[in-house]
């Protein structure tokens, strides 16, 4: 144990998180993110045991980011782990392939395959998450987190206000896979997304998941976002869209808010989302005299970072109702998390324990996941 700690200490003083190269006004940076974990699931009933006890390579990401002067930026990110696991073809290994034009005074324009500006939890990178998994509503099972499209963005008032407006295919991550073959829905319509953030007393970056600096002054950020799409066809993939909501046929309006705060080592996050769907498939209305149903979810998370122990402790409650017309369909989960930040987020132990509060659901389970994150 002591040897391991000495090695860890040595690593903390020598780790390089990225490498960069310069040529005139061109600046290129290479970086990577490795995450490996051990997962243990505790099933309620007899269940295929394929995920009960297993080591998993959660990420094997390689990222190239560049800048040309301060006028253009570009980003290309691949997750090699997904190359291995994407046999179902639902999720692309590509995470980012986009470029931003920054030289226009009135707006920045980001084009390409990118994160959709919706939900603070979703927009916070995996490397800055205290838990292995985001809350159910924001982890990519309910709404698409990435898509191909265009985002206009602009900040105001010393970067305390951020406004983002985007148009996407509406096909989500499947736009980069054989599931769609890169084609749009038969309606030919796009998904429109908007997000406004107000932070005080200064900008509040997504990567400030933990209050590592123990802010003496409370920092707060309020995000309001919405998205709208009208589609002809439903496109449900098996593993990444278990609720059939991400690419559902019909008219879908989603509204959400998030509130984040940091103060004296404590970090708080609250998110609430409501998706209203007027589906083309009327069976989703459960035979009731309704024109639409709602999918509702929320996340409440509190963390504390202890600088002496280099440790973060997190508690989270999250819930999700996939269809408010179905009685007793609330999924509720309590999660406890622990992180040991050997070298900030660059070299970090991550532990998460899930405890399902809705014990009546036969296919749910508790689980624990423990593993290490290394950036390079």
């Amino acid at each position, binding site marked *: 144990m002591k040897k391991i700690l000495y090695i860890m200490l040595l690593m903390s003083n*020598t780790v390089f*998180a*990225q*490498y960069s190269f*310069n040529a005139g006004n061109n600046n290129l940076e290479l970086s990577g993110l490795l995450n490996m974990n051990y997962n243990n699931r505790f099933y309620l009933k007899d269940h295929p045991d394929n995920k009960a006890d297993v080591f998993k390579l959660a990420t094997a990401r390689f990222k190239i980011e560049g*800048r040309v002067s301060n006028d253009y930026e570009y980003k290309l990110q691949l997750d090699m782990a997904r190359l291995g696991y994407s046999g179902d073809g639902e999720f692309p290994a590509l995470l980012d392939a986009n470029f931003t034009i920054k030289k226009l005074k009135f707006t920045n324009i980001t084009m390409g395959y990118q994160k959709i500006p919706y939900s603070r939890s979703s927009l916070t990178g995996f490397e800055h998450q205290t838990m292995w998994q985001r809350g159910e509503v924001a982890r990519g099972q309910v709404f698409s987190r990435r898509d191909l499209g265009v985002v206009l963005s602009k900040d105001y008032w010393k*970067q305390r206000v951020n406004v983002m407006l985007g148009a996407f295919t509406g096909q989500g991550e499947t736009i980069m896979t054989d599931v769609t073959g890169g084609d749009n829905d038969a309606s030919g319509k796009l998904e429109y997304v908007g997000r406004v953030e107000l932070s005080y007393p*200064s900008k509040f970056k997504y990567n400030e998941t933990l209050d590592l*600096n123990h802010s003496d002054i409370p*920092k707060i950020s309020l995000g309001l976002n919405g998205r709208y799409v009208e589609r002809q066809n439903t496109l449900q993939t098996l593993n990444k869209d278990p609720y059939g909501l991400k690419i559902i046929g019909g008219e879908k309006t989603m509204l959400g808010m998030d509130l984040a705060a940091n103060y004296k080592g404590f970090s708080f996050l609250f998110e609430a989302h409501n998706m209203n769907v007027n589906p083309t498939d009327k069976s989703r209305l459960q035979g009731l005299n309704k024109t639409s149903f709602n999918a509702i979810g929320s996340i409440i998370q509190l963390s504390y970072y202890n600088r002496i122990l280099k440790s973060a402790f997190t508690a989270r409650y999250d819930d999700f109702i996939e269809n408010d017309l179905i009685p007793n369909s609330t999924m509720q989960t309590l999660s406890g998390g622990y992180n040991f930040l050997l070298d900030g987020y660059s070299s970090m132990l991550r532990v998460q324990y899930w405890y399902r509060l809705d014990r009546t659901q036969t296919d749910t389970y508790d689980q624990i996941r423990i593993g290490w994150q290394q950036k390079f």
Partner: protein
Amino acid sequence: MYINFRVLFVTVFFVALPFFAQSKPKPKKLVLLSKADLSIKEPSDICILPNTNKYAIVSDNGLLFLTDTNGVVLKEADFKGFDFEGVFADENKIYVSDERSRIIYVFDYNLEKINSHQLTYYGGRNSGFESITFNKNKNCFVLITEKHPSIIFEYDKDFKELKQYPYTFSSDVSSITYHKEHLYVLCDEEKKILVLNPNDYSLENIIQLSDINPEGIAITEDGRILIISDDGQYLKKYSLDTK
């Protein structure tokens, strides 16, 4: 459950604790004298132009400004860099560290670019040199990389590298200044000023700050400490609480 996690956690805490609980000098505190909002967006460092009543302030957007002692902009350099993060001035020149391009630009007091020096450092583009000063005790420039890892680099007056030293006193370094036989290192993340011995770079003292995102430090002849906040976009003047 197959693993007793209570035992695992307790073990990790108690075994790790002695390694990370370092004994450091008790932090001193500052007394706020004044605060001025800046019109400069994303200010990242400040220095005092000797024998003048002027400051040089640089910004993340690759801009260099000349200001009065209240931070009011008097002049802006025509030359625009990439990501200016560190600034130092001697009796007739201003030296600016462009973090991303690893270039030291040299300006005269009229903010005309007169020279540049390309440094070599392959760390993260946003983890380069945010700090630059001149160490009079050793007659060399001192630059420290921001993080991952932080390394003290010494350069001669032509910016030829002389020596490197490991730096382990804080998680990041956002600015450095020399004042009366001491080096003052500003740490943005830990909101501290670390006072180092300029001969061997050992830690002598700690001064606690409460500013959000402090990115620049300079010290006047009479010992007033100037702090620039990037996110806060302001300039504060402090005196050291001697109680």
